[in-house]
């Protein structure tokens, strides 16, 4: 938001003055993420993860374009070209491990970013559009990650592609032709591999575009903050630069430490060993699992084992899996409490943590074999998941009595005048 007290951009020399007239890019940056953007003074590290997500996208694009210079998207040679990158290409192993673990890091960061949104109700007015665009970004990320995982053409790549495109065959009437259209054949092969490669290359740039919209929408109301109350005066804010460039920079350092520790010491810990076996259309691995970041949704997919009313089990599972994300689109209207921050919502807060546990349990089941006990736990977990959003949240927000809110952000940080005087 253009708060009236925002610092004004002043070109510092003849060149920047000239540039400011022809193409005011420095002015744009100054107002977007520089000294000209006032931000609440009380943001905690939960607000670091948007910047970290942006960093991850850049990381993926840089390592990805590098890999693309050596990779060949042909079912006959794809697997070997990846091994060639790992063994022969100078620093190829770093690029590949960097990209694979970068995807995991991206999802860790975005999940924290999303759960920050859940806790502080960042999705509420006036920030609904930021949230909706965020869910779009997340869906695009899932599509990108899925198609990327197919590219090495190992066993998990192949069977992942088969199972996930098989989801579409659950749609009545058009399902089977749709699956064949998606794959360009009856089973994943050259046609599928090539188009997945083309789209995997394209989608991150689409994501970059939606992120621009996401941040544009963010700059209209400005960032929320841990109290959830809106900015009232200049003393509630500090300029983004240098305050949050420094804070985010420190967070980025911590992030990089963890990322590099995984990258250099456990580069395969998050991958599945079966993907080092070349794709074999005649033999399904005993236990097909997607990458860890899809596990909660995979558990919901597998939770539906019996037909439900008129809907066959297979279609039901697919609908439930997609609904698990689509329900987020309705969040701004399901949670009707006038108070945003979970800090002032005692009842909401308890259910928030239950949801976190529920998603972790679902994730654990999604990564386990399709045995009865895991399926049973997934069924309970999936039921609770939808109960949380569709029943618990609306009820809690109407019956809960929130705790009193501070008068302003400044008051919350420094204490009220009365307290300040007393101190």
């Amino acid at each position, binding site marked *: 938001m253009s708060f009236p007290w925002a610092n004004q951009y002043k070109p510092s020399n003849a060149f920047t003055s000239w540039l400011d007239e022809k193409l005011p890019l420095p002015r744009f940056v100054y107002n977007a993420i520089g000294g000209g953007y006032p931000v609440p003074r009380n943001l905690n590290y939960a607000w670091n993860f948007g910047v970290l997500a942006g960093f991850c996208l850049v990381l993926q694009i840089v390592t990805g374009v590098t890999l693309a210079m050596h990779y060949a998207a042909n079912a006959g040679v794809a697997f070997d070209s990846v091994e060639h990158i790992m063994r022969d290409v100078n620093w190829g192993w770093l690029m590949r491990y960097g990209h694979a673990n970068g995807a995991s890091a991206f999802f860790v960061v975005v999940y924290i970013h999303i759960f920050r949104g859940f806790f502080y109700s960042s999705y509420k007015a006036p920030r609904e559009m930021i949230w909706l665009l965020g869910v779009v970004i997340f869906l695009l990320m899932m599509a990108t990650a899925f198609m990327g995982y197919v590219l090495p053409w190992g066993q998990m790549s192949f*069977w992942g592609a*088969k*199972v*996930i*495109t*098989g*989801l579409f*065959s*659950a749609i009545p009437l058009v399902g089977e032709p749709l699956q*064949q*259209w*998606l*794959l*360009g*054949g*009856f*089973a994943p*092969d050259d*046609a599928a591999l090539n*188009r997945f490669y083309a789209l995997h290359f394209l989608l991150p740039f689409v994501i970059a575009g939606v992120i621009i919209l996401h941040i544009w929408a963010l700059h209209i109301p400005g960032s929320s903050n841990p109290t959830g109350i809106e900015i009232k005066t200049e003393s509630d804010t500090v300029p983004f630069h240098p305050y949050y460039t420094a804070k985010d920079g420190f967070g980025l350092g911590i992030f990089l430490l963890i990322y590099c520790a995984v990258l250099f010491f456990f580069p395969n810990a998050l991958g599945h060993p079966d993907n080092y076996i070349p794709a074999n*259309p*005649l*033999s*399904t691995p*005993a*236990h*097909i699992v997607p990458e860890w970041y899809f596990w909660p949704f995979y558990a919901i997919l*597998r939770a*539906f*084992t019996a*037909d439900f009313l008129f809907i*066959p*089990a*297979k*279609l039901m*599972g697919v609908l439930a899996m997609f609904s698990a994300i689509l329900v987020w689109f309705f969040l701004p209207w399901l949670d009707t409490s006038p108070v945003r921050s979970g800090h002032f919502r005692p009842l909401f807060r308890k259910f928030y943590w239950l949801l976190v546990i529920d998603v972790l349990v679902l994730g654990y089941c999604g990564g386990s074999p*399709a045995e009865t006990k895991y*399926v049973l736990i997934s069924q309970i977990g999936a039921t609770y998941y939808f109960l949380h959003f569709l029943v618990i949240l609306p009820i809690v927000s109407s019956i809960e009595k929130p705790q009193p809110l501070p008068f302003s952000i400044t008051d919350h940080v420094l204490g009220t005048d009365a307290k300040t005087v007393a101190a």
Partner: protein
Amino acid sequence: MADGAIIDGADSTDAGVRRRDFIHIAALSLGGVGGLAALVPLIAQMSASDDVLAESSTEIDISAIAAGQAIKTIWRKQPVFVRNLTPAEVAAAQSVDATKLRDPQSLADRTKPGKANWLITMGVCTHLGCVPLGAGQGEVKGEFGGYFCPCHGSIYDTAARIRKGPAPKNLEVPPYVFSSDTVVKIG
């Protein structure tokens, strides 16, 4: 001037259709139709190409498959199970009331007349497309003695009909003929 007639002169403000409005609507409609037409090749290019569709048919010699054994072969780049059922397996499949099944079909519906022991199906689970176990030596066959899909636990019986688990349909029977008593031509 008659209502709806085209009026000369772009700026005419009289009632009726202005020439410029007409040109706008005509140009935009034609542009829209052209844009939609351009979608046809863009969408159609993703469908299976001719070489993929050229259904190379597969011939299989089944003389070496003893009762109780099965082989896996490939048709249209997908696995096919050719299984020689034992008399007990045939009897088990026939003893079920087919009308009560999820995908009601009898063993006779799924085999050729007089060849009820030759169960030829795609090796593609109708749930999400994994290859079920049960055709290979020593693989688990599941509680109905047919096939078991390890991905999400679909269980098929000795007529490869879905009996339990998430799959909606029986294993698909591909088009095939017996070229002779020992050779089957699929496709």
